C-alpha cells in the first residue's frame, strides 16, 4: 500500500530502517491524500531537485507498517496529519504534525541537514 504521489514511498517498517541506515538525511511525510497532507507532498516534490543531499519519502498513514512512524516518541503528542519526521544519521532530528508551509519545511531542512 503506497500513496499515489510521484515521491519515493516507504513501504514497510523494515524498509524505513534500511532507508535511514543508508542515508544521512531523510525526510518522511506520513499521511493520507487529504488537504493537510497533499501540500506537504507537493513541497517535497519541488524540493527534491534542490536538496539533493536529502532523501525524500512519503508513507501511507493507514498502513499497519506506518507504526514505525506513528509510535515514535517524538510523535506521541501529534493529533494532526501528516506526521513528518526528519532523520539525521538514523536518529530523529525533528518532527512536525499537520500541514507545513514551504518556508517551515525549508527552515527545518536548512537547520538539521544544511542548506541546499
Amino acid at each position, binding site marked *: 500500500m503506497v500513496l*499515489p*504521489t510521484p515521491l519515493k514511498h516507504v513501504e514497510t517498517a523494515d524498509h524505513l530502517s534500511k532507508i535511514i541506515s543508508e542515508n544521512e538525511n531523510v525526510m518522511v511525510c506520513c499521511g*493520507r*491524500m*487529504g*488537504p*493537510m*497532507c*497533499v*501540500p506537504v*507532498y*507537493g*513541497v517535497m*516534490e*519541488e524540493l527534491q531537485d534542490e536538496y539533493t543531499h536529502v532523501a525524500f519519502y512519503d508513507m501511507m498513514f493507514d498502513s499497519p507498517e506506518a507504526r514505525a512512524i506513528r509510535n515514535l516518541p517524538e510523535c*506521541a*503528542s*501529534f*493529533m*494532526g*496529519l501528516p506526521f513528518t519526521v526528519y532523520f539525521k544519521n538514523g536518529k530523529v532530528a525533528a518532527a*512536525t*504534525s*499537520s*500541514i507545513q*508551509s*514551504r*518556508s517551515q519545511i*525549508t527552515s527545518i531542512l536548512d537547520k538539521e541537514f544544511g542548506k541546499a
Partner: protein
Amino acid sequence: MKTHYNTIIIGAGPAGLTAGIYLARAKSSTLILDSGVAGGQMILTHEIANYPGIESISGYQLSSNMRNQAKKFGCDIMSGIEIVSIDFESTLKSLTLSNGKSFSADTIILSTGGRSRTLGVPGESNFKGRGISYCATCDGDFFQDKEIAVVGGGNTALEEAVSLTKYASKITLIHQFDHFQAFKHAEEEVKSNDKIDIQLNSKIVAFNGNEKLESVIVENLLTHEQYELRLDGVFIFIGYEANTDFLRGKCIALNERNEIITNEKLETNIPGVFAAGDALQKRFRQITTAVSDGTIAALYALEYINQQKQKTVTA
C-alpha cells in the same frame, strides 16, 4: 532566467495556470509566481467530479496536469516565493522577491486565491496538529471518545460538527453571532444532535496546554464573562479570506473584505493590471470559475499588450 516578461502572473492556482496556458500558447512571455506550490486550493481537493470532460480526478493530479501544460507552452514558474515590493502604477510594472531578484512586465495578472481563515488567537499556531485542526476528514479519528469544540457558524462548520460526532464524545459548537449562517437543514441537524452543545455569542480568546491542547478560554460576547473549557481538540471552520495581504494599503483597489475589485474585463483600477480567481470580489468560487477568469484575464492582457505596442508604433 529572464528578468522582463510580457506578463507576470501572481498565483499558480487554476486561474493563474489557465492564464499562463493562454498567454504562453499565444507566444507571449509569461512568468508565474506562487508563494506556495502550484495548484492553489485545488490541490487540497480529494476528488473533483464536476470539472467538465473529466469524470473524476484528484486535485493533486489536475494541478499537476495544469502546471505541466503551462510549462510545456513555455511559462516560467517559480514557487515558494515571497514578494517584498511592487510597483504596478508605472507603465512598466515591476516587483522584487525576498531573495533579491527583481522582474518587470508589461502586464500583471493577480490570481492569488484564498486561504482558510484562522482565529488569530494566542496559542493557535503552537497547538496546530496537537489539538487544533482545520480538517475534520483528516484528523477526526484522533479524537475518538474525546471532548472537542468546533468554531464557526456556516454550512461547513455545522456539517463538520455533525460528522465529528462519529468520533468525539461531546462537541461544543462555538459561534460569535446569535444565529448561524447556514442552511436550515444543517442547523436542524446540529440542534437535534445530543452530542452537540451550542454556545452562541461566544468566542475563544486563548488556547492552553503543554505538549497538547488541554483547554480553551471562551468569552461570552454579551456578558464578557470568560470561562475555561477543558477539551482535547478544536476544529476551526470560519471561512476563507483572499490572499491579498501584500496588496493592502497599495494602489490596487480592494473591497471591505480585501477582495480585488475589477470590471467585466477583469481589469483592476490600475491600467495593465488584471485579476482572476478566488481573490476577486465575486460570489461563486469554483475551479471552473477560476479557469474562466484566467482565460478572460489572459485574453484582455494580450489585447492590452497589443494596444500598448500599437501606441508605441504610432508615437
